[in-house]
């Protein structure tokens, strides 16, 4: 196939042409309550061509019928020529890579029967339902895939990647009369069958939490000192800062560039942030991005100061910086855009734990787990799964509906303590941007303390 794609690229009239072809084998099992929803095996395949001519724009063609490849190459070239630009699009120089990158399948999911996958999910789903008769509903899903991606471009790059993925998630719905609460567990790994066998306890815990939340009061709205657990701290850094470090937001916008000038201070010296697409075995990990650039560990904030950003070849050229391997597409249906991979807050002082963070808080909130987050760049939300009040340096009652309102310039700067207990969150779900969702990403963080953050609720 690589040779066929290389031949198609050679035929192209465009100054620059790239072709990506994907073939994805996947299986999925889902339960709703005690009932099986589906158990299916699917195969999806298609191609993507992007062409660029001098003084012209991008021409793009995405298709499921691979027989059409030569016609689609010609079409992408035509579309590129239909757009005239005064200021040409440039791509940062790159050494064309040729490689076969086969990630560890760790138990090839293609060799496991659908019946066995159903049995595994039935076990986890059953673990949630068994917790209490107040668990009235569950939504459990198992999904795996093995994706083969071929990438060639007219500069000579030729890359084959084999990317596995497995995601298990469960939502437990607890109900007492009109009160309804939920607990959510989600595990996502760029690995295989062997890695998802031992999560019974996690599923029991989330179901128990849904039951416990039935008796919990809503958090009172206002500004509090807040401690984020590892999972929510990860979502926080993704929303609070990760999206702003994506250079496609700043590269065409002089005001945004000024706001995000390298060297600007965003936090106290305890704060170190980065994005590492090359970290081993994580869901956001990939050897090469969807422009054929090798991934890397990119420091973004060093001791509170902005030191880097995430790039595609186009944004890097425009800003005179180097590509970082962050051009990603969720599938052949989409062009690569600047995205995060595995984004992290680096651990603070080794040995510094939760105790050091909570000790001097008189009234505050310990916000745990994550239902999600969203950003409008300066302002963002991050939604905890549950929380505890902190009273006089101690954890107090369980509270629900804990949603934090963040501000890029205020919230990051108010991070005053970072623990040493770093973990990667192996979450399912994914990140959405520009109509591309869900992109597999991972977040990692230790416990983090924010001196003051706004929490919504009755006041």
């Amino acid at each position, binding site marked *: 196939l690589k040779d066929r794609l290389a031949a198609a690229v050679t035929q192209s009239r465009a100054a620059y042409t790239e072709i990506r072809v994907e073939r994805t084998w996947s299986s999925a099992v889902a339960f709703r309550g005690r009932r099986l929803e589906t158990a299916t095996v699917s195969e999806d395949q298609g191609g993507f061509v992007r062409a660029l001519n001098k003084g012209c724009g*991008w021409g793009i063609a995405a298709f499921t019928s691979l027989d059409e490849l030569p016609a689609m190459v010609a079409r992408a070239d035509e579309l590129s020529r239909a757009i005239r630009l005064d200021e040409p699009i440039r791509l940062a120089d790159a050494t064309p890579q040729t490689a076969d990158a086969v990630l560890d399948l760790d138990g090839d999911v293609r060799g496991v029967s659908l019946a066995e996958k159903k049995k595994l999910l039935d076990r986890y789903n059953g673990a949630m339902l068994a917790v209490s008769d107040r668990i009235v509903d569950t939504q459990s899903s198992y999904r795996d895939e093995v994706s083969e991606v071929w990438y060639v471009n007219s500069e000579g790059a030729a890359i084959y990647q084999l990317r596995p993925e497995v995601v298990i998630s469960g939502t437990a719905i607890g109900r007492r009369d009109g009160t309804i609460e939920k607990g959510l567990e989600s595990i996502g790994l760029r690995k295989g069958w062997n890695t998802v066998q031992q999560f019974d306890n996690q599923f029991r815990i989330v179901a128990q939490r849904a039951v416990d939340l039935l008796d919990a009061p809503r958090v009172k709205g206002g500004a509090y000192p807040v401690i984020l657990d590892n999972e929510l701290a990860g979502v926080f850094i993704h929303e609070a800062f990760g999206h702003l470090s994506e250079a496609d937001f700043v590269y065409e*916008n002089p005001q945004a560039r000024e706001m995000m000038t390298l060297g600007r201070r965003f936090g106290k010296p305890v704060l170190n942030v980065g994005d590492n697409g090359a970290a081993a075995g994580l869901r956001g990990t990939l050897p090469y991005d969807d422009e054929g650039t090798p991934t890397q560990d990119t420091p973004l904030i060093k001791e509170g100061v902005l030191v880097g950003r995430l790039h595609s070849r186009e944004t890097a050229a425009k800003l005179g910086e180097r590509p970082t391997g962050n051009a990603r597409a969720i599938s052949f249906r989409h062009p690569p855009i600047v995205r995060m991979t595995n984004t992290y807050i680096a651990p603070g002082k080794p040995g510094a734990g939760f105790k050091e963070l909570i000790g001097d808080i008189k009234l505050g909130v310990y916000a745990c787990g994550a239902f999600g987050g969203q950003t409008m760049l300066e302002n963002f939300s991050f939604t905890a799964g549950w929380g505890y009040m902190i009273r006089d340096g101690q954890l107090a009652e369980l509270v629900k509906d804990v949603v934090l309102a963040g501000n890029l310039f205020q919230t990051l700067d108010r991070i005053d303590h970072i623990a040493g207990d770093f973990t990667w969150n192996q979450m399912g779900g994914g990140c959405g941007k520009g109509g591309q969702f869900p992109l597999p990403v991972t977040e990692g963080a230790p416990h983090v303390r924010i001196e003051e953050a706004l929490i*919504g609720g009755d006041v």
Partner: protein
Amino acid sequence: MIERLLERARGKVDGADALWRREEQTAVAFESGRLKAAGIAEEAGLNLRVLSHGRMGVAGTTAATPDPDALVARARASADLGEVVDLAFPAASTGPLPPIPTFFDRTANASLDDLIRMGRMLVERLSRPDCQINVAVEREIAETAVGNSAGARGEYRATGIAVTADVTRIVGDDVLMVYDQYVGADMPGDTDLEMLVRSVETRLTAALKVVTPPEGALPVVFTPAGLAAVVLPLEQALSGKTVLQGSSPLAGKVGAMLFDQRLSIEDDPLTPGRPASRPIDDECVPSRCTALVERGAVGRFVYDLETAARAKTQSTGNGRRGVFGKPHIGYTNILFRMLDGGGRHGLPLSAPTPELGGGLLRDIADGLVVDDLIGVGQGNVISGAFSHPVGLAYRVQRGEITGRVKDAAVAGNAYDLLKQIGGFGNDGRWLGSRWSPSLLLDGVSVARR
């Protein structure tokens, strides 16, 4: 393709239904005011569901030349693990399908240059020295065919166009994002584009000044865009699936007066000119309108074939399916109907964009207009509770907008707030597949730093 597939399934399974869909998209993107990319996407896929020994199974493929036997075999393997379902596929309808225009030649025939011209006009109209503007124009042409082993067949073509304008204004450390779009099956007319421009300009102008947010339980006007957080819990709770599962707070409440008696909500797949409209659903059930909320009372829940069979009722024609996976419940067009003194407000206004707040601000001493919230859909939605930072919101003082507020969060419970609606705005409009006016809701919690 459907015919051949059902033919191959015959004798091997008890029954089957299938959907074939081909989509063709053309898109142009202006980034920071410059046309940067043009693209096409073509995709075709086939989805098959079978009943085999009373059990349900599904399979799908995007292969260019699908092998029907392989697809049937995969669906049967899926059914081997499936649940027993007492599902009856609808028979061929006796009359013609409801006549609903879904295909507009103007949209289908629009050239790349037509799309570019439209985008360029918006860029020119919305350009301001301190703003960056992104515009996207996306046109879709789709063909759908559905059929089942009971002899029902349906086929239709559809067009859709989305024009999106997105303005970002950064001054110092203040980031303002204003966004709006036109979505329709037919091409936007000059009036539609003019409304889009004015909508963005109005909200941008009112946002230039930043003021301190208020605090407390306050009157809040939710614009059609800001209303999403309040509508989402109802959409989940009115789904026959959550009712069956016991997780809907509306289960067992059909006929109960839970909402303001002037409020009616419908799901209507037969609304002319909307991309979500269709003559038949993805399971061969002819389309019809469903009253979800009727004059404040809980109306009918929406069902697909499977949930209807389990609930021992009829499908409401809300079956939706993709290439992979099994059919599920999906809404089509959701319309808010306000009953004021017995009269029915008409459909889309073609008048110029009304003022922000839909004429509901007059009696507000201190409150907010909420146009966008951040993180909608990410909490414990079905409970009705919501809590979100504001994305775009304005303070109202003594009946007038005094500026934009930042760093504030609004919270409440949709069920409590919709019991008594303070007022329906005169600014009813489409937003994606939902038509609603602004609503004034009282007692919304506003927290600030």
